[in-house]
């Protein structure tokens, strides 16, 4: 079967001017997306995915190069192209004060869909997205996943021939994510639609027919997902040891020269080597005869990491032991029956959990699950409507200011001063935590070294790339050596390599005795936690260690469920009305 191109980019260049400097968003990009296929744009933030989407939709003009969409030159006839494609931007413009039905009608009006086709189309779309029972609900009251589905439905009101989807699944819970993919697949199979979709989730690459790997405005490769992972055959292994904790095992293996990548994957460590032979573990695990090494099938992510990982070595972070006013194993965070209401809406309902000293405790859930609200309450930034929260034995809402010096907080968005340099930011937070002059200088130097920011001391922090911004934010939260560290979505939007570095730092902190509370919407990151709580729509669905949680869903059909499987089943159970998981 031959496919004609639905979309062609040829030697495309696009520049932006920021702060008087010309920044290349896209350099020499040549891509072809086949008709009737799903083409995935994969790459970290700032890879140029959104710019490419907007160029394809005729919303931006290229500085150089050609774009043909469905055979039409976009630069010459942008309106013709816009009539034939459906574009769903990252934040789709739903009108939150209109109902689902009204939103659909508004978009049908905007796109001039003829009246007699409408009711049939609406029915199809509502059936496809499963929004049928909610047509009367205000869009603002929908969950994150439902909003994305409605956005997709609105994009589809007038059956476009090419669908441009910019990160449609980011921050969406795994159930909705799976459903969205189901809808997209059906559109391609049944209606013959062509789809160009961007994503930062590497596991989604495997669901595409074609993958375009992008990084920093350049195309690193294009082909089927297997064409990326096949060359990696023989280089991927699972390593497990019954005696060593998986995080320690991972840290040791990662230090080996022949290892490109080592991550905690379920209860094992996934290792990718430079050459097609298993890692020599003797050097790091001298006399551990029980270590098991097993070759596994490579995945897209292995190829991605191998392609992007430069020779740069990672500085093993050193964290000093924080002052101990508590013993190992003491409960340092206690949350019982906490609720938070905003008007009629419960952002957090009846949540209870406790965290012991030195643990890495994860709050896992989609955007809007109530993770950040819980965090803000714990840090004393928001009062709870009901229930009690204790951090290091105190309610921070009412505790004296001094109590706050025992915790560090890193907000979800980069929230340091963008106009100040890296050094000025660090110095400010060191002073804000009351460090004296000598100590301040020591800690600033420590932060610059540990977080590999030496070359950036005098750079305006707003000019840093996202990964570096996150490092700076974490450094700032650690200036005063807190006992408890709150990290709200520290890895959201950063590329997989930066995510790995981040977790190595978090693990090292935990080894030093710091209690870490972390939220994430990446299911695979849950395996790094000692214990975790899964949240959905403000409620806590389950709590326990990753192994325990997964074990609960082990069945004949699923002998080794992943965290994502466990999550999906938990949510389905909740939706079926079985109540909270026991």
């Amino acid at each position, binding site marked *: 079967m031959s496919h004609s191109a639905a979309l062609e980019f040829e030697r495309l260049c696009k520049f932006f001017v920021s702060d008087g400097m010309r920044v290349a968003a896209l350099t020499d990009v040549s891509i072809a997306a086949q008709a009737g296929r799903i083409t995935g744009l994969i790459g970290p933030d700032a890879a140029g995915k959104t710019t490419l989407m907007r160029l394809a939709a005729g919303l931006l003009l290229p500085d150089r190069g050609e774009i043909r969409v469905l055979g039409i030159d976009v630069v010459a006839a942008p309106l013709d192209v816009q009539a034939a494609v459906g574009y769903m931007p990252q934040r789709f413009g739903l009108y939150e004060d209109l109902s689902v039905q009204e939103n659909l009608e508004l978009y049908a009006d905007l796109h001039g869909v003829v009246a007699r086709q409408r009711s049939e189309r609406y029915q199809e779309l509502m059936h496809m997205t499963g929004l049928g029972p909610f047509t009367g609900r205000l869009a603002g009251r929908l969950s994150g996943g439902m909003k994305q589905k409605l956005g997709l439905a609105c994009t589809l009101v007038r059956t476009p021939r090419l669908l441009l989807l910019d990160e449609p699944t980011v921050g969406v819970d795994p159930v909705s994510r799976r459903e969205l993919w189901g809808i997209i697949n059906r559109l391609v199979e049944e209606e013959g639609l062509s789809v160009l979709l961007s994503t930062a989730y590497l596991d989604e690459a495997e669901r595409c027919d074609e993958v375009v790997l992008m990084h920093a405005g350049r195309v690193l490769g294009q082909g089927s997902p297997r064409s990326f992972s096949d060359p990696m055959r023989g280089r991927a292994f699972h390593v497990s040891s019954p005696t060593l904790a998986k995080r320690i095992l991972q840290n040791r293996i990662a230090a080996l020269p022949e290892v490109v990548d080592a991550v905690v994957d379920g209860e094992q460590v996934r290792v990718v080597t430079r050459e097609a032979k298993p890692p020599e573990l003797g050097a790091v695990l001298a006399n551990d005869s029980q270590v098991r090494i097993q070759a596994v099938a490579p995945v897209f992510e292995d190829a991605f990491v191998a392609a992007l990982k430069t020779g740069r070595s990672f500085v093993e972070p050193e964290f000093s032991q924080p002052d101990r006013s508590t013993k190992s194993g003491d409960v340092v965070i206690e949350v019982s029956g906490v609720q938070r209401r905003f008007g009629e809406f419960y952002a957090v309902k009846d949540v209870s959990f406790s965290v012991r000293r030195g643990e890495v405790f994860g709050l896992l859930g989609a955007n809007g699950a109530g993770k950040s609200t819980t965090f803000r309450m714990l840090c004393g930034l928001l009062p709870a409507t009901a229930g009690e929260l204790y951090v290091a034995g105190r309610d921070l809402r009412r505790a004296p200011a001094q109590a706050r*010096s025992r915790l560090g907080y890193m907000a979800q968005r980069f929230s340091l001063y963008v106009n100040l340099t890296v050094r000025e930011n660090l110095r*400010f937070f060191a*002073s804000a935590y009351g460090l004296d002059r000598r100590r301040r200088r020591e800690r600033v130097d420590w932060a610059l070294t540990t977080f590999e920011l030496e070359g950036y001391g005098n750079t305006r922090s707003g000019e840093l790339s996202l990964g570096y911004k996150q490092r700076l934010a974490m450094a700032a939260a650690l200036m005063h050596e807190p006992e408890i560290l709150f990290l709200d979505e520290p890895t959201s939007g950063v590329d997989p390599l930066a995510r790995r570095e981040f977790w190595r730092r978090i693990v090292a902190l935990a080894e030093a005795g710091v209690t870490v509370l972390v939220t994430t919407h990446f299911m695979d990151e849950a395996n790094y936690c000692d214990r975790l709580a899964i949240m959905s729509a403000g409620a806590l669905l389950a709590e326990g260690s990753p192994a325990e949680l997964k074990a609960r869903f082990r069945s004949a059909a699923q002998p080794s469920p992943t965290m994502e499987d466990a999550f999906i089943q938990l949510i389905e159970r909740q939706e079926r009305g079985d109540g909270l998981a026991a």
Partner: protein
Amino acid sequence: MRQSWQRITALAVKELLAVLKDKRSRIVLVVPPLLQLIVFGYAATFDLNDIPVAIYNQDRSAPSRDLVARIVGSPHFHLSAYIDHDGQIAPLIDTKEVLVVVHLGPRFTADLSAGRPAPVQVIIDGRNSNTALLVQGYLREIVRDINLSWAQRKGQPPPLASLQVRPWFNSNLASRWFIVPGIVGLLTLVVTTIVTALSVAREREAGTFDQLLVTPMRPIEILIGKSFPGVAIGAIEGSFILVMATYWFEVPLRGSVGALYLGLFLFLLSAVGIGLTISSLAVTQQQAMLGAFLFLVPAVILSGFATPIANMPDTVQLLTYVNPLRYFLIILRGVFLEGSSYSDLYEYYWPMALVGLTTLSFAGWLFRHRLS
């Protein structure tokens, strides 16, 4: 205590850097005050000069020409047209070509010689009542002068009673002397309110305020640290305008500079308090900016900067008592023109201090209690 000061200094330095490193806020600090200083210093005046006047003289003899010469020769008037019949009056006024028409009837000299009162008709454009009254006053002055000199020449006794006006404090009644000291208050208020109104809102918008609130900083420390740049920038800006007022616009500064600065400090404190309150209530910088203007416009109108407070309705006058600019204007004009010192101004200091303390405490309370 030492730690506390260290935290406050760190915050104050950071706040100053945040304002000065941002190109837009640097422009806000320099351009509008300079522009306004020029506009108010040169353009805003209550005096009328070069009033266009049309002369309709049906008499054409020596006394009437004498009167016309005095009007046309005055710096207040500027001859626009001579006319010679009634029909020309209305179009000139309607089209605003002239503001006033002076009409001397054919019997003007005859009446004068016969010792009868000789009427001079004045037709004024009454659309702007304020200027109409001023024109009337100027003309009345000219006619009074000429009456006196005619009486002298004819050896007639002078009028029984006459006004001997001697304006104190501002002998020439130059309105610049009244307006320019006011600008010190006006511009300092605008700059300080805007700088502080943006400070918390900017941080809330960027999410840095949460980061600040989880540090051991107490609200009072945040308050002091955040007030400092507003007070410092306001003081520099205010001093600059003070220097311009005395050396460039040559308004005499007669009283105690110390008393003036005490007033300026208390005034800045209240402006910072109001700015921080607006900022703490706002969620975005845009809201804060709108809030600042919602406060600034009535604050200027109800301050006595241009129109006297005594002329306002009683209920509105009550409102002016919470307006710090009201008190600072009195202090400014008192020190500049009256030569006042501390003891004269006591009753204007404490209301500003009160406004400052109230708004600052409220803003400090809002830091932690404003839900987002």
